[in-house]
């Protein structure tokens, strides 16, 4: 046990230190990040059904051309909305990798959230109803094992499992 107690913090420290070192280099240049973010909001239109920056078809000229268009648009100083609107105007709404938050597309985003909260509310209500039900069966006390003896077992359980 002592070995475990000694080693556990060390392992945890190694894990955390390693993860931290790894994740430290997170921040890159803002332009690259913006290109990456916008590129992941667009789909390649060559028919591969892949995100623009992840289309890797051998010799796919569509994705290369679209990436250049994205770079040009960013270089012009267009805002994110203008960049994306430009792509929608040219390639149609399917060029966006996720539904917009306008019109019927809003339903796509709203429904999971509604279901999430409705389901959680339902569970809480169900638990309250079940909790308020009166017991119909005798209390589970362990037959001829007296409550004093059971309390003693509980005390022992707590005592023996305290680290």
């Amino acid at each position, binding site marked *: *046990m002592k070995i*475990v107690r000694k080693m556990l913090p060390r392992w*945890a420290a190694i*894990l*955390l230190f*390693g*993860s*931290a070192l*790894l*994740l*430290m*280099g*997170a921040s890159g240049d803002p332009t690259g990040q913006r290109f990456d973010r916008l590129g992941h*909001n667009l*789909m390649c239109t060559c028919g591969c*059904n*892949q*995100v623009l920056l*992840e*289309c*890797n078809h*051998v*010799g796919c000229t569509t994705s290369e051309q679209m990436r250049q268009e994205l770079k040009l648009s960013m270089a012009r100083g267009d805002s994110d909305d203008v960049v994306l609107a430009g792509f929608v105007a040219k390639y149609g*709404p*399917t060029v*966006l*990798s*996720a*539904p*917009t938050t306008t*019109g019927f*597309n809003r339903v*796509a*985003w709203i429904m*999971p959230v509604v*279901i*999430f909260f409705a*389901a*959680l509310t339902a569970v809480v209500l*169900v*638990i309250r109803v079940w*909790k308020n*039900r009166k*017991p*119909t*069966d005798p*209390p*589970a*006390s*362990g*037959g001829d*094992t007296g409550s004093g003896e*059971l309390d003693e*077992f*509980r005390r022992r*359980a*707590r005592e*023996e*499992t305290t*680290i």
Partner: protein
Amino acid sequence: MFGLALSVYAFLAGLYALVRNDDPLGETARRAGIAVWVAVTAASAVLVYCAFRNDFSVAYILQHSNRALPGPYKFAALWSGQEGSLLFWCWLLATYGLVLRLRHKVDTRLVAHASVVISAVQIFFLVLVNFAAHPFAMTIGAIPADGNGLNPLLQYPEMVIHPPMLYLGYVGMTVPFCFALAALIMKYPGEKWIHITRRWTMIGWLFLTCGIFLGSFWAYKVLGWGGWWGWDPVENASLLPWLTGTAFLHSVMMQEKRGMMKVWNMWLIFSTFLLAIFGTFLTRSGVVSSVHAFAESDIGPYFVYFLALTFAVCMFFYVRNHAHLQSEHKLESLVSRESSFLFNNVLLLVAAFAVLWGTLFPVLSEWVTGHKVTVGPPFFNKVNIPVALCLLLLTAVGPLLAWRKTSTESLRRNFLVPAIIAVSSGILLVAFGMKPWVEISYFYSLMTIMLSVLVAATIASEFIRGGLVIARHNDSNIFHGMWILTRRNTRRYGGYIVHVGVIITMIGFAGVAFYQNNEQELGFGDKMSIGPYTLVCRSYTQDDKPNYSSEWAILDIYKGGKQITTMYPEQRFYKASQQSATMVANRSTVMEDLYLVYTGKNPENGHPIIKAHLNPLVWWIWAGAHFILVGTIIALIPNMQTKSKKPSLRERARALVEDDVESRAPVEAGND
């Protein structure tokens, strides 16, 4: 056709025997079911034989094989196309049916009912194979000298085992469905059927999990886009039954321990099966666009009819016999194991809904507005990551809660240390430079790691507590104590190992926020940098083999000014299918993957264009999968028996407490 006839007989004779209580007739139905396996095995073997014999008079072999195709891929051709994969599905179903029927003595009457249900499912798939997608259809016209070859994307070792695993998972979900429907039809008394079903579900779940991970591994190694999960409809289709199956494996404990959730569990099994079939429909119908659409055809309507019929049958028997499933639902506290399972189930089903909703929304949008939209990774990530984090939190808290009721004092005592460790881990990560306020993805990564640490700490405390108690009793060391603990309650501690696998995988997922990539043309001696690595192009060359021609680059990899390895990203051109494919060069370490793709060459000077990805923590995803595999296998092993004679009531009370002591402290309310 012979298999279909036998299946029809197994179904009709089995049904008649059950109605008339005719046991000898029922036995003939059982044997006919076994004979189905022989017939379908023979058919599958013949198709494989045709592939090895290069018999291009069979249209399927012509379309999916060629002379130069290596042996293992000729074998894999069985499941590489529509017709063959349906035959393979039939064979797996027949194999599951064989095992089920051979083990009929576990409960003759229940198995007889389940056998009729599985025969009905078998009939559907054999009808497909015989009339809609015949794998032995003959080649029309002159027989070509060579075949069209296998899709290059399928010519990888992982593809030899990924589809069988996935199919074993999909088809495996048929068996629990058959038992559940059988139990509902016959108003099965008691909970024995749920014990049988749980084991079968775990087997199906195990295969499905392996299939999903192998598919992910294949996508990572083969597709060359640097990722392992693209939220493609076909990928989503495999996730749906996995999520509902996972929910069932948790909620079934409520039924076993407390006799609760009988209706819920019944419908979870039905939903899992229906979603497995629905996934197959999505894969094959072409109703939604997919990267993985290897086997599209017009058999979609068959699946729609089958789904509708299956749902109608389930609903009919549920309405007719639902009174049998009624149970008294009573909880003593919101803070209890039961509540945690309820929340767990709801979150898993919300995740399943979100995946299904996102997958089908393009179809819905087109139907409502006339315009199709794309629902890709940004949608699924935004919707599912918060749900996954809630699930992680529950994974940490759940094991600390006692059945019936947990006192605040007990919760505080058990939760304090793990919570301190988790919060400290978060503070440390921020102190070392992680900036969760810069981008939401960094925040999610931080939360994932913190919650994973929390889960790890709670599970570790469970093992340590129990191991210590046994070590004291047996006068042994803690590790032996943990070993005995696991063997005494394989299901519980196997489950914890599965949870460890899940958090290891989640840590791997957390690395996604920090993926980097760079693309560059590399001539002789040219350099390219990504993260701490420098790639130097030593050379580039090409080769010609019977099955394909290839081009590749030879890159020396330097880190900290020192050469650490040489990598060979490659691109192949498969002659038979006239298609190209990339062979990714990947250097995987615990910390990160250096992932190189030969994306093409500059036509003017012939220099290769290399795309380099630096993907942190990917190794953890595959490591986590191994833990999940081992944990599930442990959970399938029967518990070690400790007592041979019937114990007295006093001994039972003592054993009860010791059992709780082994597992955890908070015995707050009565014996269960």
